[in-house]
């Protein structure tokens, strides 16, 4: 993790920092997986343990927290909180549903496509925050189970997010660390993302799609939805779209204007709050602003905070380095083997732990391979890392924060997505997508 200043750990009872940090890490993840206690509480307690046991000092724990990611998430959640009041996302989802005459399988494909496209342009969490509630509403009106839709939305968000520099935090980190541009990502990752998306729809069709059926009267009910009525506030719509445009352009040029996406997203959030505050008295402004802040998913944010500290702990103890170096030793310096190993290990790791800290560790490791392979030849390794880390997020419910957000919606809708049943379907699908990505890497780069 960038920013962690190495200093010898003074672990309690003189125990090995490696042992203690791994114990705390495994204990924290085990409890998160049981889902008995809210994950943000567990992550924060795990983080505290890393400090109390002496693995980390408080300053190191704080340095381990990626505030750029937190800023990006919080800023985008603020933007979404305001923008969604204009109704523009319902508009798009309803148009998509009506285009396929509210036929359940067509609807699933359309909502997945909309999710994938939004995910490529907005952050994944933002996208699922917008699409999942509309999907729940439409499936409710069709009187069909929302589960396949929420499952596909998770997959579409992670696959769509793979396609661009700004689609997923790993891509943001890789892009800013190694000076790959928006267009580099688009040309190299968007084609394979499109292929993986199309292929993923096939098993989803055979598992759920072909059995989905809605009564004609219920489909009529959805066809009677009036998308124009969904746009509730035209001035707000214009302000929101203008700010979203500025933010996306900001992301595209973040590198050339030397700004982090977190700053751009927070600026966008503040700018839209400002535009929204014009013409209102201080009391109304306070009320509106408070409402927007309260819609930020603090459980997700604090989960990230705790997780970053826990990972900073095992990282400082040398666990991540140990794993990464052994990985390089394993490949024996062969380029194709190294690329495939990075792809598959990233995918497996990202399915189980947050891909952000993993990618942060892998970036310097891959940079250190420049003397072996030549700095100008490393690009396929970056694509391996991005594909593994982004697509790997589909492997389990804790693989990506968007997955957890969708699970939160599902739970409130009385259709909980459980850890193991989800993984039973998602993990093999994720492995298949990585196999396809391997073929792509082989044919195009190796």
């Amino acid at each position, binding site marked *: 993790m960038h920013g962690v200043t190495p200093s010898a750990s003074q672990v309690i009872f003189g125990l090995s920092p490696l042992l203690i940090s791994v114990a705390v890490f495994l204990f924290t993840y085990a409890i998160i997986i049981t889902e008995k206690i809210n994950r943000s509480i567990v992550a924060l307690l795990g983080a505290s343990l890393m400090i109390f046991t002496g693995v980390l000092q408080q300053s190191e724990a704080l340095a381990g927290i990626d505030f750029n990611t937190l800023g990006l998430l919080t800023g985008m959640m603020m933007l*979404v*909180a305001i923008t*969604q*009041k204009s*109704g523009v996302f*319902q508009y798009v989802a*309803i148009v998509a549903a009506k285009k396929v005459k509210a036929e359940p399988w067509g609807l699933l494909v359309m909502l997945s496509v909309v999710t994938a496209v939004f995910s490529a342009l907005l952050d994944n969490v933002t996208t699922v*925050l917008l699409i999942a*509630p*509309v*999907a*729940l*509403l439409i499936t*409710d*009106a069709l*009187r069909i189970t929302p589960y396949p839709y929420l499952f596909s939305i998770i997959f579409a968000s992670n696959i769509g997010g793979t396609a661009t520099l700004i689609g997923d935090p790993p891509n943001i980190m890789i892009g800013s660390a190694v000076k790959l541009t928006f267009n580099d990502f688009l040309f190299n990752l968007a084609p394979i993302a499109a292929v993986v998306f199309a292929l993923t729809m096939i098993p989803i069709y055979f598992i759920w799609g072909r059995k989905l059926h809605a009564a004609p*009267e*219920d489909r009529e*009910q959805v066809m*009677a*939805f*009036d*998308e*124009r*009525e*969904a746009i*509730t506030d035209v001035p707000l719509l214009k302000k929101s779209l203008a700010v979203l445009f500025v933010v996306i352009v900001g992301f595209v040029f973040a590198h050339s204007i030397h700004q982090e996406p977190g700053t751009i997203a927070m600026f966008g959030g503040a700018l839209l709050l400002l535009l929204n505050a014009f013409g209102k008295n201080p009391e109304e402004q306070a009320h509106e602003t408070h409402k927007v802040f309260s*819609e930020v*998913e603090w459980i997700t944010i604090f989960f990230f905070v705790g997780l970053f500290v826990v990972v900073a702990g095992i990282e400082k103890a040398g666990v991540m380095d140990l794993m990464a170096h052994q990985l390089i030793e394993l490949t024996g310096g062969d380029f194709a083997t190294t690329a495939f190993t990075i792809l598959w290990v990233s995918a497996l790791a990202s399915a189980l732990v947050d891909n952000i800290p993993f990618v942060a560790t892998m970036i310097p490791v891959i940079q250190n391979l420049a003397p072996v392979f030549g700095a100008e030849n490393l690009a396929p390794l970056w694509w391996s890392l991005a594909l593994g880390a982004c697509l790997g997020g589909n492997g389990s419910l804790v693989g990506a924060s968007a997955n957890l957000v969708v699970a939160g*919606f599902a739970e*409130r*809708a*009385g259709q909980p997505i459980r850890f193991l049943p989800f993984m039973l379907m998602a993990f093999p699908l994720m492995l298949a997508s990585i196999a396809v990505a391997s073929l792509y890497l082989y044919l195009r780069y190796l």
Partner: protein
Amino acid sequence: MTIKSLPIIRSVVTVTPQASVAEALHIMLANRVNHVPVCDGERYLGLVSVNDILQRLLPAGVQMPHGVPDLKFAGDASRLLGSHFRHLSEQAVAEIIHPAQPLDNSCPLLEAALLLSKSSTPMPVLDSSGKLLGMLSQRGLLEYLSKEAGK
């Protein structure tokens, strides 16, 4: 002066947690009230209100934070409402109960007035053993004060 000593607690019909939502709604409609206390024997468990029922008729996609903010575009969707209503009617009251804070009958009048002013519903009044004595409503309290003022 505690609320126990005043003629302001109204005895009410109750429902059991096993009763269906349809039964609870029927009781509220027949008695022209918006709330009915749920009791297991004499033990108070919570309230069920017409609004608890109404909220659960709405699609899940609007009931949550970040949910769909309005439903004007969805038209009447009377099939959706009808299907939710039928489903909800058969559920047990225990599924939709809300744990409204009860008043202790030794509560002083002024404190009762403060708690009622902050409550969106009438408040159930319990004795020290947790047995439901009746409900104290905003109207009931004001009616009493109005009579006292007229004396």
